[in-house]
């Protein structure tokens, strides 16, 4: 390949036009020389000898004629041990280390090693000499926190190789050669613990993709019971500002039953990232007893950081997620917010003067969003183990209106939709996921017949509620009124969840199943009630009891005491079974 160089011929916002001599590739990384510093940029269009690059830094001070060097590499991340617990910007620049070097501000053109070079890792060889290996196969392992970090044959090596040599068990740094591979044509390739992978290409070193069926437990009742997410699945959380998208993501990042969580804070408030940064090291992961930070990687490109790097940040995040998936782990990627990423694309598209689509988003918006979410999945690896990447993205629709391009493009490709509603968040009903509008295609923690029945109760209650607004309580029949109370009851004690309460904040599936059975008893019951006041009193009492129950620790004495109490109250007030629930009741009895 010939050396390609260029000269700046135009600057427009964060886009520069460059006259290039030599061959360059789309998405290749170039550097603009500006005094002593080099500003990273990515080729986004080539027309003849003219290329357009998006600069990942502020472009102030760039002038016509400034030199541009091309790297012949696509925008890539470094993969190797030491990623966990790190805080990166969108280009994998470690932020705490950057702060040590540059102080309060993010100086331009400073790129540090993403992974600590000096740190030694205890390497245990796994592949014997002379065995045949190919991309993604494990050569050895190093312990990284609680995980066995697999040192793998770099994913970019095509075909099969023979292990020519491998080092003894011992401590090595990531740049030490730990093995030598020989290709069929005889070239020797040294392998270290670290290699690069271009972020915009999915990692495909697996044998097979499976359909996501196993639920990913978030410990949020409304999600696990009604709108479940599967390991390897995708879901989106659209909602207007202030509806609690970020809080919901934060809760999920704490409690989700997965091995590793990648948080991509993309174009959102810096303050929220700080909360995660400060709190996670202090919090313990109940599954392992270690600090939550040890299972977390934070990619943080907040709203005031350069826009082009925002676009890269979601890809950086998903590439790291795929890397850990290759170790047979379940990884959850939380992207907040994908709208900001789409807006970054829109800004570039506008500068490129492309013909705009709806709301000036580029025409390729849908395919790019689809391509991103499709990087989620459950895969079978070559050694038979299974890993997954689950992607949950928030969407911030303009004006809170879901009929906008980003929400619609996202809905097409995700398996679950958790739509947040302003109405519910204004009424302080958290999580503000709308129980009637949201949906999920994945199987959940509770029997589907029961949740289906519960949805009917909600739907019915909502209709009665609407009617009551017109005709008042007086004009509503007692039966309808009880139906309304039942739906309010479900909302108050099951759909809403207090994330500040130590017990209620995270509800394991077993408990969800257990509680839901008793709730079904309330639903299916026909109550002895003479007046609406009586009905209201009864349901208020039930609500109070269930709320206390929600606050009692799972399987504690308090828990069973309140349960007995609730059952007694129901025994006293239920006189029969609602006829539309009869077959269901019989079915559940039989199952027990």
């Amino acid at each position, binding site marked *: 390949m010939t050396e390609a160089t260029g000269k700046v011929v135009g600057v427009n916002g964060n886009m520069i036009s460059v006259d290039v001599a030599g061959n360059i590739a789309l998405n290749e990384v170039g550097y603009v020389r500006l005094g002593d510093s080099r500003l990273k940029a990515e080729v986004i269009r080539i027309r003849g000898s003219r290329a357009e690059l998006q600069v990942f830094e502020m472009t*102030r001070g760039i002038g016509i004629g400034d030199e541009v060097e091309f790297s012949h590499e696509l925008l890539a991340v470094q993969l190797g041990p030491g990623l966990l617990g790190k805080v990166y910007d969108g280009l994998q620049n470690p932020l705490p280390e950057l702060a040590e070097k540059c102080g309060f501000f993010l100086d331009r053109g400073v790129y540090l090693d993403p992974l600590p070079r000096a740190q030694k890792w205890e390497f245990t060889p796994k592949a014997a000499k002379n065995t045949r290996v190919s991309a993604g196969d494990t050569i050895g392992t190093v312990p990284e926190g609680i995980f066995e970090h697999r040192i793998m044959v770099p994913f970019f090596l095509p075909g099969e190789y023979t292990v020519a040599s491998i080092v003894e068990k011992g401590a090595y740094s990531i740049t030490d050669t730990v093995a030598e591979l020989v290709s069929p044509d005889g070239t020797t390739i040294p392998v270290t613990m670290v290699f690069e992978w271009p972020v915009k290409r999915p990692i495909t070193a697996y044998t097979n993709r499976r359909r996501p069926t196993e639920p990913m437990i978030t410990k949020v009742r409304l999600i696990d019971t009604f709108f479940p997410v599967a390991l390897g699945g995708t879901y989106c959380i659209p909602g207007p500002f202030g509806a609690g998208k970020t809080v919901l993501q934060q809760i999920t990042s704490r409690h989700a039953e997965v091995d590793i969580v990648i948080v991509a804070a993309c174009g959102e408030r810096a303050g929220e990232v700080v909360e995660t940064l400060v709190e996670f090291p202090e919090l313990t992961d109940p599954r392992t007893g270690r600090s939550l930070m040890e299972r977390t990687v934070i990619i943080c490109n907040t709203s005031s950081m350069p826009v082009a790097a925002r676009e890269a940040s979601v890809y950086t995040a998903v590439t790291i997620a795929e890397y850990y998936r290759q170790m047979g782990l379940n990884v959850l990627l939380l992207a907040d917010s994908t709208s900001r990423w789409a807006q970054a694309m829109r800004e570039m598209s506008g500068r490129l003067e492309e013909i705009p689509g709806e709301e000036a988003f580029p025409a390729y918006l849908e395919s790019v969003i689809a391509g991103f979410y499709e990087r989620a999945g459950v895969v079978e690896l070559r050694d038979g183990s299974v890993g997954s990447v689950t992607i949950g993205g928030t969407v911030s629709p303009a004006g809170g209106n879901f009929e906008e391009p980003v929400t619609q493009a996202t809905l097409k490709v995700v398996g679950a939709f958790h739509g947040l509603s302003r109405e519910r968040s204004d009424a302080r009903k958290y999580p503000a996921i709308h129980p009637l509008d949201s949906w999920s295609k994945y199987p959940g923690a509770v029997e589907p017949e029961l949740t289906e029945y519960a949805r009917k109760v909600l739907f019915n209650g909502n209709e009665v509620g609407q009617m009551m607004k017109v005709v008042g309580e007086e004009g509503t029949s007692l039966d309808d009124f009880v139906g309304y109370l039942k739906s309010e009851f479900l909302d108050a004690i099951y759909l809403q969840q207090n994330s500040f309460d130590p017990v209620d904040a995270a509800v394991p599936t077993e408990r969800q199943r257990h509680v839901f059975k008793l709730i079904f008893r309330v639903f299916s019951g026909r109550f002895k009630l003479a007046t609406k006041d009586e009905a209201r009193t009864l349901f208020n009492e039930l609500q109070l009891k269930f709320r206390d129950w929600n606050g009692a620790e799972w399987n504690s004495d308090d828990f069973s005491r309140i349960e007995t109490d609730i059952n007694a109250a129901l025994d006293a007030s239920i006189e029969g079974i609602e006829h539309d629930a009869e077959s269901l009741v019989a079915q559940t009895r039989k199952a027990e």
Partner: protein
Amino acid sequence: MRKVYNKIEEISGNVITVAADGIRYGDLAVVTSRYGESLAEVIRLSGEKVSLQVFSGGRGVSTGDEVRFLGHPMQVSFSDNLLGRIFDGGGRPRDGGPALHEDLIEIGGPSVNPSKRIIPRNMIRTGIPMIDLFNTLVESQKLPIFSVSGEPYNPLLARIAMQAEVDIIVLGGIGLKYDDYLYFRETLESGGALSRTIFFVHTASDPIVESLLVPDISLAVAEKFALQGKRVLVLLTDMTNFADAMKEIAITMEQVPSNRGYPGDLYSQLASRYEKAVDFNGAGSITILGATTMPGDDVTHPVPDNTGYITEGQYYLRNGRIEPFGSLSRLKQLVNDSTRLDHRAIMDGMIKLYAAYKESLEKKSMGFRMSEWDSKLLAYGEIFEREMMDLSVNIPLERALDRGWEILSECFEPAETGLRTELIKEFWPTKE
């Protein structure tokens, strides 16, 4: 490197294009026309063509006028001499005082490394119960005041500027009515707060491009003071004018508009200003309060909508009062547990009762019969609006909490308030 060019090739709105070389993106130039000198900033480079936005506008600029490049981007002087001074959007004195040229700093600098921020933990007292008690303002918070034209958002900001417990106030006026500018000046002067205040005022009659500089200049100065350990409050009014000015330039530059004519980077542009709000680890802080008027009282309009996604809550100013519903300080939970034991309980309790009052009011207007409870609520709501919500009420937080208990005891029995028993025991006023 001072180059002078005498041929302007294109003049379109406030943007002029000259053929020049050796020019850098973001550089400043001086355009001299027969109506005087004006600064201009490079906003696009394309080959040898350089597009500049002229701060005083393109009107009257002739193709033969002189363009002199200064070889540096926009700068502002920074020192303690700024205190008590009034400048225009371009940083020139508006108060007849001397122009400042020493210690120049660049504006619109890089953003703060998130790992150098800390979780906010100090409240800013304003003496306004609807803020201090119900939606506490927190140091390093960014909050807009959503309002509509005609509402007293400027008097509100002026009061906050007078009373807020911070070290320095930077007031950025964008498209400010001249009367309002005089109002701010007189109020702060007579209140004795001028000496800790710096004005950067662009009035409605000033050239539109200058308004684009106001937030950046204000925040650059604020940042320097914060780095010296000062607690700075930046007041920006009105950010909708700022967004409209951006729209104007974007359209002139033939950018593809995204939503109602606003440029596609509206969110990023607003965010890069609001995100300057910060609590530095080991130095001072910047808090931003911005007025955002909602065209047509529509919160889904692109400006308030994008602002809402950026800021940490919002105050709604309607009918001359800060609305308790919808208004939200997202950071208040971080500080209101350590003010006084009853703060959170009074905050929630009084608002719940006020919500019940609103329902009763609705019932009343629809002609339903009023129960005894309804009448109690109606009496309560009236007192609450008069003694808590009215903007003229000016009492410290502790006094507001006490007043809250007094109001409750005037209107209700203890059990009706829904407050916890131990709090009632401690705080319920005894009747003499």
